[in-house]
C-alpha cells in the first residue's frame, strides 16, 4: 500500500503512524506529485496533529532528539525519495533505539546523514548569504535555496534583528517569514516587495560593493575558490556580485 500525504511534516508523521498501526506502508509520497500505477494500491492520509504528535514523541523518547532533528532536516530537503528514506530509517530506529546515532555507515542511516548535512549546510550558508534591503518601513530579503530551509533561518534573524520589521521571501517556493519586531510567522504566499530606490539604500549598497572589491588582494586572486564558496546560482541575489558585475 502506498500512502499519499499532503506534504506537511505532520502529514508525513501521520502516515508513519498508520504504517505501524493500520497497514504497513510500501512507500510514502506527496499526493501532489504522485504517479498512480495499476499494481500498487494507494490511499490518501489526512494529516492529524494528534497522531503526528504521538509519533514525534515516540521518536524523541525511543530513539533520540538527534534523530528527530535529522529527520526534520531530511523532510526539508529536495531529495525526491526523502519520505521513504525517513520511513526506512525510522523502522530501523525503532528496533535499535538510540544506538542508531552511532552507526554512521549503515545503508539506511548514511543517506539520512548525508541529506541532513546538505540541508543544515545550506541553512548555515544562508545565515551569511542573505541580503536585506531597507524599504523604508521594513527590511526585505529574497532567497532561492535548493532546500526548503526558510524556517531554519527564522529564529536566528528574529533574535538578531529584534526591533525591526522584516520579511524573508523564498521566491522559489513562494513562502515567507514575516516578523513584526517580536514574533515571526511563516506565510505560504508572498508578493515580491516593491522596493523604492531610496537614496540611502543605494548609498549603502554602493559602499558595500566598493568595500567588497577593495578587500580582495590582487596577487592572491583565486576565482575558482570563490566559486566554490559562492556558487553562481546564489549570486544574483547578492548585492556585491550584482553591483560589481561578478555574476
Amino acid at each position: 500500500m502506498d500512502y499519499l500525504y499532503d506534504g506537511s511534516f505532520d502529514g508525513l508523521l501521520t502516515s508513519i503512524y498508520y504504517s505501524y498501526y493500520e497497514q504497513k506502508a510500501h512507500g510514502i509520497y506527496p499526493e501532489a506529485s504522485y504517479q498512480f500505477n495499476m499494481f500498487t494500491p494507494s490511499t490518501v492520509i489526512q494529516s492529524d496533529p494528534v497522531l503526528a504528535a504521538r509519533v514525534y514523541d515516540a521518536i524523541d523518547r525511543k530513539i533520540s532528539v538527534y534523530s528527530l532533528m535529522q529527520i526534520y532536516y531530511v523532510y526539508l530537503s529536495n531529495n525526491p525519495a526523502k519520505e521513504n528514506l525517513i520511513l526506512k530509517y525510522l523502522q530501523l530506529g525503532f528496533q535499535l533505539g538510540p544506538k542508531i546515532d552511532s552507526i554512521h555507515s549503515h545503508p539506511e542511516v548514511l543517506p539520512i546523514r548525508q541529506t541532513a548535512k546538505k540541508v543544515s549546510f545550506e541553512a548555515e550558508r544562508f545565515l551569511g548569504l542573505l541580503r536585506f534591503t531597507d524599504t523604508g518601513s521594513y527590511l526585505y530579503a529574497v532567497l532561492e535555496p535548493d532546500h526548503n530551509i526558510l524556517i531554519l533561518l527564522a529564529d536566528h534573524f528574529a533574535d538578531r534583528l529584534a526591533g525591526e520589521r522584516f520579511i524573508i521571501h523564498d521566491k522559489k517556493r513562494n513562502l515567507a517569514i514575516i516578523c513584526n519586531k517580536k514574533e515571526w510567522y511563516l506565510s505560504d504566499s508572498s508578493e515580491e516587495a516593491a522596493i523604492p530606490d531610496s537614496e540611502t539604500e543605494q548609498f549603502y549598497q554602493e559602499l558595500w560593493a566598493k568595500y567588497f572589491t577593495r578587500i580582495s588582494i590582487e596577487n592572491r586572486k583565486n576565482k575558482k575558490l570563490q566559486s566554490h564558496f559562492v556558487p553562481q546560482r546564489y549570486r544574483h541575489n547578492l548585492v556585491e556580485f550584482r553591483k560589481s558585475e561578478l555574476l
Partner: protein
Amino acid sequence: MGTLEKLAVLADGAKYDVSCASSGVNKHNQGGIGNSKSFGICHTWSADGRCVSLLKILLTNYCIYNCNYCVNRNQNDIPRASFTPREVADLTIQFYRRNYIEGLFLSSGIERSPNHTMERIYQVLDILRHEYHFYGYIHVKVIPGADPALVNKTGLLADRMSINIEQPTEQSLKLLAPQKTLPVLFAPMNQIHHQMTQNASERKIFRHVQKFVPAGQSTQMIVGASKDSDLSIIKATETLYNRFQLKRVYYSAYVPVNEGPNLPALSTSPPLLREHRLYQADWLLRFYSFKADEIVNEQSPFLDTDFDPKISWALRNMQLFPLEINQASYEELLRIPGVGVTSAQRIIRQRRLGNISYNHLKKMGVVLKRAKYFITCQGCYYGGIPAESALVRQALTPVAKPVQLCLF
C-alpha cells in the same frame, strides 16, 4: 573626502590582515541589535577566495611607524584618510542591519601616539555597545604601547583582541620593524591573558561580572618577508599557544607592497603553498595533539611541499604503523593520515556496536587513498605494497598531470 573614498582607502589598508573569524562566542540579543554564533558566520567570499565575515577596516592609515613590510608605513606616498569613531559605528550598524557582515574588525595605523589611537578605538566600541546596544561581534587590534587601563576598558567591550607580532623572531623584527620589539608586543598579550584568566575565575563567584574578551585573543605572523624557517615559525606558534593561550595564530603569505633592501623583490609572488602547509601544521598543534618538534626539526627546518605535515610525520615514523582500526586509541586514530577529527569520533562510536570493516571506513569520511598504507582493518592490510617509508612515499607522491605535446 566622502565616505565612499574613505572606505576604499581604509579597507585597502586593512586587507593584508588575514584574521576574519567571527567565532568563539555565543551571544543573544538583549534588547538592541545583533547576536553572535560561536561557529562564526561567513557572509561572502572575495575574489581571492577569502571569507568576508567582518567589516575589516582601519580607523586611520596615518602612521608614525615605518615598518618595512607594511603598506601604511609613514614614508609611503599613498592616499591617507581617517574615520571618526561615529562614522565607523554608523557604517557597522547599517551594514549589519542589511546582513552584509557579522560585526566589526577594527585596526588602525598609529596616529600621533598609541594612547591617542587606542582611545579612539575605545570610542567606536563605546558608541556601538552603549548607544546602539550592539550585540554583534567586535574584534579590535590592541595598539602596542597603549596604557594598560585603556586596553582593559576596551577589552570589556570587545569580543576578541589581537596584537600582531608579524615576525616570529626578535632578529627579523629588528630588521623589518625596528621601532617594535617582542617584549613591547608581549606586554599587552600577557596583560590580556592575565585578565582573561582573572575574569574567568571572578565570574565563577559573581555571575554578573562583565566578560573580558570572551572570544579570546589571536595574533598574526607574516610568512616570507624575512628568512625565518618554518621551524622558528612553528616553535613561536607553540610558545604563543602555551604561554598566552591564544585562540588562533594566523599566517599571512607576504604580499610585496614595498621595496627595500631587507625585503623580497616586488615581483615575488606570495608563498601561498607555504602558508597553506603552516596552517595544516597549526591544525596539528591545536586539534591533533602534536608537538612542534614532531612536525619540524633542526634536520628538516622547512615543511615538505609535496606532502601535508601529517603524512610527512607518518612517513618518518613508519615503525608505528600499520595501526588496527578496531583497536587503536582515539589519539592514535588521529595520527593516521586521512583520518580527521570527525571520522576518528565516528570510528570510536561505531566500534562500540561491532567491528568495523574496510568498506565502512570510506562511508565514515576516511580518505582511504592516504589511510590505506597506515592501517589494518580486522587484521587485513589493504595497501597493496609493503608499508615501508620509501615505497609509500612513492605511492603517495602526486603524479604530474600529463601535458599534451605540441606538434609544431
